[in-house]
């Protein structure tokens, strides 16, 4: 789960990472009041999970509460790069002496964490890595030992002397967030040295491990602040992995790898997947029915492809689920079903016996993909 900047900063505050004073506003008027309280000169920052806000108009630096209000009005009404914006962060403008970069992330290859500090920040870090790799110091962190003090000292050893102590302290607090909040990424870009000598986090990017959310109810609750479309919300509620895409062939499968492979095969057959939906292992009839409802609720869907290879998932339950869904809702589009693996024959028999007019049973994955694409195309032509 990716946190918004202001959510990440709340976590920073809890762990003692110094920040610039500021508050979140959901309306232009609220932004003005916060600006008044902060003395007028503020930054108004769109809360979105897309980079490039500085250059793209997502951050406004203003001189007065009235300007803060109009900047917030513009950002909240226009959104940022096609994404709606529901909140802005209003922060006191500060005098920046130097900009750095700091991050701790999971290094999957090393099976450890990687901490990095760059003496150049505020810009795209990949650029720094390419142009001046010597600006980036990195250390591998053994999770059993944690980030040791000597490692933090090394990480900041190439920063200006006056920034080192503050930056080293921040690096250790960032690692404390990794362990205490199960973060897999804590990134500060830029980390800045202010004119008055303080080192503060001007931005935050924090990713929390989804598998660990059950032991962090406070962080899990932050999700409620995210804009979610109703289809997505319904899928999440049932524990289905659903990602909306922009094609017309609805996809349901079991297991992320098989679903991804199904998307690829549909694309190769000339179609465009409408979604990714992994019904998961050991799916029940009810899960299957909900999956179908979720996919069919997308108005762009012209046909659905159900591709199940049963391991723990049993074919007869999949078949029952499909029929149950069709008894609850009206399917306006054809549903191509391909069942294989555990109890697949029984599942196919159940579908055959039901002889539902919308169900098209196809024996192999490639034929099923072709059929689903073909039906999506004829359905579109028919609709047009």
């Amino acid at each position: 789960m990716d946190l918004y900047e202001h959510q990440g900063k709340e976590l920073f505050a809890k762990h003692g990472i110094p920040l610039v004073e500021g508050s979140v506003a959901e309306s232009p008027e609220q932004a003005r009041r916060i600006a008044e309280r902060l003395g007028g000169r503020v930054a108004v920052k769109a809360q979105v999970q897309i980079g490039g806000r500085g250059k793209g108009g997502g951050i406004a630096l203003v001189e007065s509460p009235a300007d803060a209000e109009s900047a917030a009005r513009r950002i909240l009404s226009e959104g940022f790069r096609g994404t709606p914006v529901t909140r802005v962060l209003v922060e006191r403008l500060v005098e920046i002496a130097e900009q750095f970069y700091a991050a701790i992330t999971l290094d999957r290859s090393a099976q450890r964490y990687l901490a990095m500090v760059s003496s150049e920040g505020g810009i795209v870090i990949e650029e720094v890595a390419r142009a001046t790799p010597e600006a980036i110091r990195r250390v591998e962190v053994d999770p059993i030992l944690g980030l040791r003090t000597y490692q933090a000292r090394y990480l900041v050893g190439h920063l200006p002397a006056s920034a080192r102590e503050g930056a080293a302290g921040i690096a250790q607090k960032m690692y404390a967030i990794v362990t205490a909040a199960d973060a897999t990424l804590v990134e500060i870009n830029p980390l800045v040295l202010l004119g008055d000598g303080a080192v503060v986090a001007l931005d935050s990017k924090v990713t929390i491990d989804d598998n660990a959310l059950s032991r962090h109810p406070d962080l899990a609750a932050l999700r409620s602040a995210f804009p979610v479309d109703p289809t997505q919300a319904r899928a999440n509620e049932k524990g289905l992995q659903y990602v909306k895409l922009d094609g017309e062939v609805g996809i349901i499968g079991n297991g992320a790898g098989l679903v991804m492979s199904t998307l690829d095969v549909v694309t190769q057959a000339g179609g465009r997947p409408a979604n990714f939906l992994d019904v998961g292992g050991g799916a029940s009839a009810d899960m299957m029915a909900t999956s179908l409802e979720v996919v069919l609720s997308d108005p762009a869907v012209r046909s659905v492809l159900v591709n199940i290879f049963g391991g723990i998932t049993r074919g007869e339950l999949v078949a029952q689920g499909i029929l149950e869904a069709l008894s609850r809702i009206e399917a306006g589009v054809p549903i191509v079903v391909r069942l294989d693996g555990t109890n697949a024959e029984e599942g196919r028999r159940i579908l055959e016996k039901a002889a539902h007019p919308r169900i098209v049973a196809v024996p192999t994955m490639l034929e099923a993909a072709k059929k689903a694409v073909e039906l999506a195309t004829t359905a579109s032509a028919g609709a047009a």
Partner: protein
Amino acid sequence: MAVLVDERTKVAVQGITGREGTFHTLRNRAYGTKVVAGVTPGKGGQDVEGIPVFDTVTEAVRRTGADASLILVPARFSPDAIYEAADAGVPLIVCITEGIPIQDMALVANYLIGKPHMLVGPNCPGLISPGKSNVGIIPGEICKPGPVGLISRSGTLTYQIVNELTHRGIGQSTCIGMGGDPIHGIGFVDALARFEEDPETRGVVLIGEIGGDDEERAADFISDHMTTPVVAYVAGFSAPPGKRMGHAGAIVTGSSGTAKGKAEAFEAAGVPVGRNPVHVAELVEETLAKTA
């Protein structure tokens, strides 16, 4: 021959008395796997259809000589189950459980460094040496004994590809599901090295997917160390670019983690890449025909 498990492997199931635990234990035993013990704290002395249950893994090992552990316990108990199996001296630990926090697995992985244990998983279907032993949840009936080793990050996609191979009459030496979690035990390179040493494995299928750089490192290993031919498949060509990952991830791996990048790495290493599961089986068939 086979790698990691064969007809002599003696399995203890941690979590044998749970619903999933009992179900898969009995399925594995019915396949022919030597399931010698179960472990559930507090249920020592009971049995599951004749399989003795012990309170601790150490006791199970001492009393039955178990040399592999199959973990089928909920995520919050799984790290402890892995530590317990390791501390009891079990050489092969197979953890099926999904949803273990990454930090817990990072601790486990670093604890196991330098110790003589092989962890398979977590969040994986386990492994099977067809006709010999099935340790996990791979449906045994779709497999067939033969010369092809298989290592995969995915579960059901593995079944799909195994099924395509079996339909063409191509059997498998060992199929290993390494699991889809970012931190895992056995990886492509460990498995490839074992297949390379196995005289009866004449070809290997490697099934990868988007994310991380396991595939890129496997490609390097293949070009430097393998004589056994490998065929690869990568899922996720049409997956949308991932959600925001910050920029740190790309720097760590030096790779974008895309399916295209991985497929190119394999092709550069001389490894043919199948377009879909059927094409993978066709490539394996061609490869075996050339070396026969």
